[in-house]
């Protein structure tokens, strides 16, 4: 897709826009407390840099990883310019996640706070889906949220049913790894907590 974009293929650009702009927007929104104007600026600035450097993209890093790295840098730059330290921003983010996770494992929180914590876990799930190759994320949502039969998923992806089954298996495995990575990045404080392995139950 990157090569086609460089060659001026408009369909490739449309695919890039469909697949990567929404996850990038969500990535920035979470880190900028939903300030829409600022999110737009940061996302546009990120895209400007990435598109400009697309010719030098070698694919060692996944495209989404690259977009997130540049976006994170843009956000740090924003806080730096507004006199906040970039390090503080990243630290605060990690600290929040660690706090959330320990509290979830602890199981002693009820009421609105618990609902807020659950929402944090949902964000982790969305982050993990955004981190997957776009068609993996879509396939998992079609199957588990929209209850789309495998046969139709296969049609939407332009493949046979067997291949779609196989893709769903790979997508689940990739989701498992992406989710594990997100949690592992929360640091040893979480991983070493016995309560962290507990499962939480809640009525839906």
């Amino acid at each position, binding site marked *: 897709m990157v090569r086609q*974009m*460089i*060659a*001026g293929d408009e369909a490739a650009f449309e695919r890039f*826009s469909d697949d990567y*702009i*929404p996850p990038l*927007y*969500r990535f920035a929104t979470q880190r900028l407390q939903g300030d829409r104007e600022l*999110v*737009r600026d940061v996302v*546009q600035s990120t*895209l400007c840099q990435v*598109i*400009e450097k697309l*010719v*030098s993209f*070698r694919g*060692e*890093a996944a495209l989404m*990883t690259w977009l997130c*790295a540049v976006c994170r840098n843009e956000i740090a*730059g924003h806080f*730096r310019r507004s006199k906040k*330290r*970039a*390090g503080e921003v*990243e630290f605060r983010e990690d600290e929040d996640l660690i706090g*959330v996770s320990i509290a979830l494992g602890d199981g002693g929180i009820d009421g609105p706070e618990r609902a807020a914590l*659950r929402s*944090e*876990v*949902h*964000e982790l*799930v*969305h982050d993990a*889906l955004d981190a997957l190759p776009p068609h993996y994320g879509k396939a*998992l*949502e079609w199957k*588990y*949220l929209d209850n789309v039969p495998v046969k139709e998923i296969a049609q939407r992806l332009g493949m046979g049913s067997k291949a779609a089954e196989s893709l769903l*298996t790979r997508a*689940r*495995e990739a*989701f*498992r790894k992406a*989710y594990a990575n997100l*949690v*592992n*990045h*929360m640091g040893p404080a*979480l991983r070493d907590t016995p309560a*962290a*392995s507990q*499962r*939480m*139950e*809640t*009525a*839906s």
Partner: protein
Amino acid sequence: MSKHFSADPSSIPDARDSGEVGIRDLIQGAGPRPAVPSEDLARIRSFAKEQWREMARTARERSRFGRNTTLLALAASVLLAVALGWWLMPEWAEWGGPAPELVASVELVRGQVLVDDSRVAPGSGLSAAAVLETGREASGTALRLIGGHSVRLDKDTRVRLTSDSSFELERGAVYVDSFLAADGAGVEVSTSYGLVKDIGTQFEVRIGGRASTELTVRVREGEVVFERGDVTHAAKAGEELTLRRDSEVVETAPIERHGAAWDWVARVTPPMEIEGAPIASYLEWVSRETGRELRYSEEALAKSAATETLSGSIEGFTPEESLSILAGSGFGYQVDTGLLLIKKP
């Protein structure tokens, strides 16, 4: 109905053993990913499309330039062969002038960069008297002088090369890094305000920064000397000299050696070749290129960094962006004011 949710990945059943229940519940519990407001999405797409069209157009031009360069190279080979013939035949040699002296090569190009009014590509050789000019927006370039100095040009900058260790800055800003220069070899930057000489250092010289009639010299590392007539001023790391065209006064002020004021330099920093390089060498490079002190949270990490090596490439990333390659390497990092702290992930 009861649902499970957990932040812990070990609580997701393995699909091979017990099916997909855990993943299904997690995804169902989280619901659909939030949609992007349609107005924002439309604006961002439209902006990105403009950027993409410009990038694709430039890529096509570069491709044509590359083909033309190949043809020119062929033509140059023929000319070279003829010239060589002249040189080998004594009766012709006295008519042949000396070949232009190469004094630098182009390491990196961003946006529009012209040499003697023609677009230039990375790898091109530059002769003395070559005039380089960068575009007004989103452009810049990095050169390597034959003497070893790295010279980076900001956007809207015009420079005339004069030798393998000197050049004239006519407009805009340059950044010089003498790290790889031969021992004792300095570089000289001539300006209409006076002459800037380095003493093993990293520094920026800018004409027309805060005011159009002003020259600033900002020193990140080492020391520079500014000469105007018989008067000499020195600036050390973390200092900035400011000179005005209509005044003899030279002001000195402290500056930070990292941060947004140096961002343009990062954008035209040639990437380090990291394949097989020790992690410690790479981190020292990032530290130097970002003006931040490198520190390890524990001794064991410093020892590991000295022995473990990297693979791949960081092309396309600024030094700070490239730190993302540490993900999964057993090294974490925190970029703080003036500090690059290496810690466990």
